[in-house]
């Protein structure tokens, strides 16, 4: 089979097209490309190909043989790929409508079984806030967390410890990190004091990562902070974008009530990482260990969803559900982070389909799933993925897949909280309070008593002081996001 477009795509008809449709498509293409009319470079070649396509597809026997060839050719491509993907759609067919409609795609990406099973080397930068507010338990817990991580590193790993307040400094270099006694001594020198300049910390962390950047391993930055940065948010986001381009993932961890959750979320989601919220410093050690452990189970990094949605389709929003719930952007390519060896990366895409006429099938999107497979000499093979759906005048009466409705139900609670917060910021406190009361009712019906109570408290606060508390904002945001964790939804 020739490389490039298959005959159906060449003629622009669905695989299920009738002979009549094929003939019409051929006539149009032939008129457009005929050598008498057209002299553009490559047009004659294309004309011959279109002729060939029509010759094959208009003949029942030849078409059947071609279909078989095509299927096995694509099957080979799919088996050679480093990744496997499945798509579940919220409806089995769309409606022929002259108004927009919403549709959901649940995309599961898994590694192929024959990918190397190694523990990849980890190039890690821990970027730690040492501003005044970190004094005491927070910094103590961070020190012990770092020491634990250092005990679990291997000789191939590079671990850099960076601290920052008004400026940043490298406290432990990878060489020093390999000698526990040296690392311990260096860590004990960390003193709390000063402001919170996150951009400084990120830049120094990134410099370290770039010195030891590894194509066979993982390049990761973990940011710990309890504060807000002022004036350098844009610089932080530029660093995050740079990291995403260069295969570095950012994990951000916010401690207490006063950190800037929006900035931390944005930093993480741009690189495919995730955000954790700790209301007590005691959780620092286990969270850090959890992140480090998951890095060791990574089989491919820089997992990306590339390609394009059809002209009639808009990507409205996307939410990563696994391995960690995280709202993602609404544009392609999308950085999805690390692919776990025994796990799956699951993304829910919400798309809007603009009015479609009397067609019988719509190619929703032509995606490519790509990533960097870890292990020396491993070549990654991207996976092409076409998402199609039949279009009809008959609505699909089957209920949508349980996984989709369950996830969307939780996401809609998360969105209620986001909306309430937005309204509170605009000064529409009565409206925001009503929304939180509604959220509380639904949380209570789901058995989430603590979270419901927090929502009611915040609703009450809105009525009396017209503001949400810093604590409540975070509890509700990360609490409703955590509803999507596998343990809660009963999904593996």
């Amino acid at each position: 089979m020739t490389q490039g477009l298959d005959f159906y795509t060449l003629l622009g008809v669905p695989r299920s097209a009738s002979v009549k449709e094929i003939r019409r498509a051929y006539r149009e293409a032939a008129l457009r490309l005929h050598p008498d009319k057209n002299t553009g470079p490559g047009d004659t070649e294309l004309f011959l190909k279109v002729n060939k396509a029509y010759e094959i597809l208009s003949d029942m026997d030849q078409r059947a043989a071609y279909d078989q060839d095509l299927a096995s050719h694509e099957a080979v491509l799919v088996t050679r790929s480093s990744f496997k993907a499945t798509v579940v759609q919220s409806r089995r067919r769309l409606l022929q409508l002259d108004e927009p409609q919403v549709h959901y795609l649940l995309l599961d990406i898994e590694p192929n079984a024959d990918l190397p099973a190694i523990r990849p080397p980890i190039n890690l930068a821990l970027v730690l806030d040492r501003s005044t507010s970190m004094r005491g338990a927070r910094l103590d817990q961070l020190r012990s967390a770092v020491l634990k991580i250092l005990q679990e590193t291997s000789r191939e790993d590079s671990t850099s410890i960076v601290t920052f307040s008004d400026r940043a400094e490298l406290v432990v270099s990878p060489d020093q990190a390999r000698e526990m006694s040296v690392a311990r001594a260096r860590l004990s020198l960390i003193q709390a004091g000063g402001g919170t300049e996150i951009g400084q910390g990120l830049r120094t962390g990134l410099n370290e990562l770039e010195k030891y950047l590894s194509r066979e391993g993982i390049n990761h930055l973990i940011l710990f902070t309890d504060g807000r940065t002022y004036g350098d948010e844009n610089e932080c986001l530029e660093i995050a974008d740079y990291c995403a381009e260069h295969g570095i993932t950012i994990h951000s961890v916010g401690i207490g009530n006063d950190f800037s959750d929006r900035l931390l979320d944005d930093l993480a989601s741009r690189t495919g990482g995730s955000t954790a919220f700790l209301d007590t410093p005691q959780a620092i050690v286990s969270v850090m260990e959890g992140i480090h452990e998951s890095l060791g189970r990574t089989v491919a990094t820089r997992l990306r969803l590339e390609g394009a949605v059809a002209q009639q389709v808009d990507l409205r929003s996307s939410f990563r559900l696994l391995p960690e719930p995280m709202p993602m952007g609404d544009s392609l390519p999308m950085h999805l982070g690390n692919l776990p060896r025994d796990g799956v990366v699951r993304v829910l895409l919400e798309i809007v389909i603009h009015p479609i006429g009397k067609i019988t099938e719509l190619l929703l999107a032509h995606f490519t799933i790509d990533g960097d497979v870890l292990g020396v000499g491993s070549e990654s093979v991207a996976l092409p993925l076409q998402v199609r759906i039949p279009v009809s005048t008959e609505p699909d009466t089957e209920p949508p897949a349980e996984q989709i409705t369950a996830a969307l139900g939780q996401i809609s609670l998360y969105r209620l909280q986001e909306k309430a917060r937005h309204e509170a910021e605009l000064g529409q406190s009565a409206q925001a309070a009503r929304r939180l009361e509604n959220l509380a009712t639904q949380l209570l019906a789901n058995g989430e008593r603590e979270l419901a109570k927090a929502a009611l408290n915040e609703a009450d606060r809105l009525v009396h002081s017209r503001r949400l508390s810093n604590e409540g904002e975070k509890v509700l945001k990360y609490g409703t996001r955590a509803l999507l964790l596998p343990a809660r939804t009963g999904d593996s």
Partner: protein
Amino acid sequence: MIECPTCRHQEFVGTLYCSECATRLVHTAPIGSVDELIETEAIVGDDGLPTTRGLAVGALFGLRLLETGDMVSLVGRDNFTLGRAGGGQAIVPDVDLDAFGAQDQGISRLHAEIRLDKEGVHVVDLDSVNGTLINGKRIEPQQPRRLRNKDIIQLGRLRLQLISRLRS
């Protein structure tokens, strides 16, 4: 466009949850085969044709108050909280039983929930003060219990019967 039955917000066709109030929207996929799953009282027409599927085509699904015979319809969503909306409180159940003397009958503000899904119809007691009984048997709070057609659900002292059949 479709309209949310709870808050009247307009959404695009295909939307599964209202973006204003997070109500589950059931439209192109009507609650569907639920009536088959809960052993409906099958009403076969004179022509001997089997019952039509789906609640959107004239089926009746709701709770009948045994004392008064009043019918509370449960249509348009796949979960309904039952309780009483006392004055000035934040939590409002989907089905307000205040009109039926809920307070005197010992019904909690958020007493129980009816859930409809592929497995059928379930009731969950939401840690109510006076508890929920199915056919005279007390059920554990927060544990969904499957319901069959004509089951009697008792909230506090108020007795309701699940009715699912085609409208004649």
